[in-house]
């Protein structure tokens, strides 16, 4: 559903709900919950357990404050302002709690993972592959990295299927040997 469609549909449901249509109000809250779950989930990806609690917290706030919505106002702005207020509230409470305890392995955790390692590995592999002769390099690239079948690789490179298999086998052996030699 596009944003403007959601705005029209949800706003219509809310206005009918405010006028006393309980079914429309129920539908409004149910659809709103879906939007809130997506909105808050994106912002709380570090704490997936808190998303559903915060969704309910926001729903309750919007229900209790539904008299503050005025029909000349975009519903998106109203919903966003309340969700943001409650989100900031939660993050502030979390910050206060986190400040109280000091987990000992937190400092180590900073260096435990690194996204540069993955890209370094890719660069190293490409460099090592360049040292192999073509009849070993191409089979490895096609079969092991790109996921083609042996037959497809044979067709593409013009090699026989058994030559492809042998190339992979010998190439990987050569790579392993070079890995051992590189410090």
């Amino acid at each position, binding site marked *: 559903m596009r944003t403007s469609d959601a705005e029209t549909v949800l706003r219509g449901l809310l206005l009918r*709900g*405010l*006028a*006393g249509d*309980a079914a429309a*109000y*129920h539908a409004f*809250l*149910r659809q709103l*919950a879906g939007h809130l*779950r997506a909105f808050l989930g994106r912002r709380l990806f570090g704490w997936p357990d808190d998303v*559903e609690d915060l*969704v*309910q917290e926001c*729903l*309750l*706030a919007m*229900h*209790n*404050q*539904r*008299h*503050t*919505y*005025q*029909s000349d*106002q*975009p519903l*998106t*702005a*109203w*919903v*966003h*302002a*309340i969700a*943001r*207020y409650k989100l900031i509230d939660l993050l502030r409470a979390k910050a206060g709690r986190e400040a109280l305890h000091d987990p000992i392995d937190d400092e180590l955790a900073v260096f435990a993972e690194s996204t540069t390692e993955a890209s370094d590995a890719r660069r190293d592999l490409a460099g090592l592959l360049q040292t192999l002769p073509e009849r070993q390099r191409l089979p490895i690239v096609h079969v092991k990295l790109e996921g083609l079948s042996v037959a497809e690789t044979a067709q593409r490179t013009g090699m026989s299927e058994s030559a492809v298999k042998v190339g992979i086998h010998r190439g990987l052996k050569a790579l392993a040997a070079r890995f051992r030699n590189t410090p």
Partner: protein
Amino acid sequence: MKTDEFVAMLAAGAAPVPPHAAARRLALALCVGLALSLAILWAGYGTRHDLVQAMFWPMFWVKLLFPLAVAAAGFVMLQRLARPGVRLRRAWLGVLLPVLAVWLLALVAWMQAPAEARMALLMGRSWRTCVPSIALIALPVFVAAMAALRTLAPTQPALAGAAAGALAGGVGAAVYALHCHELAAPFIAVWYVAGIALPVLAGAAIGPRLLRW
């Protein structure tokens, strides 16, 4: 509880909401507060005896209309800040501009007066009682506005508290003007503005604590 059940529970207990409920609560708060402020004036101070005659003096109207302009701007700010997602826009200018205008007026009066008369223009005869009196008369409006705000949803509580203070201070100063005998612009520029600033600062200070929801 599952969110679906939670939603069903909320929807089951939902009474219809009258249109403009939020605006009406703030207007009601203003009316109640204003009535009590006037009651304090009549009970504790009394209007000035020459009130009818004073209505022919321009400075009396400056003294009355400048706080009323601040109060009106405060009321508009309050209406916007009480509802989530409504932008304040330039409403705060309505508080600032009347104050600047009075300061300009006071500066002109100050420059034109002979040096030995200036202190009298500034201090008048009632500078000691002016600020506490305005604050006291502003109090009912302040309390009523804060009480109304607590049933609404200000997402910027400090600013909402300050707006309630501007409304209360403006009303308080305008009501006090019916009693006050001072007519010098420098007096108004300092003591009336201070009397209005007091509830504004108080609102900004207690807003974050009092207006949580």
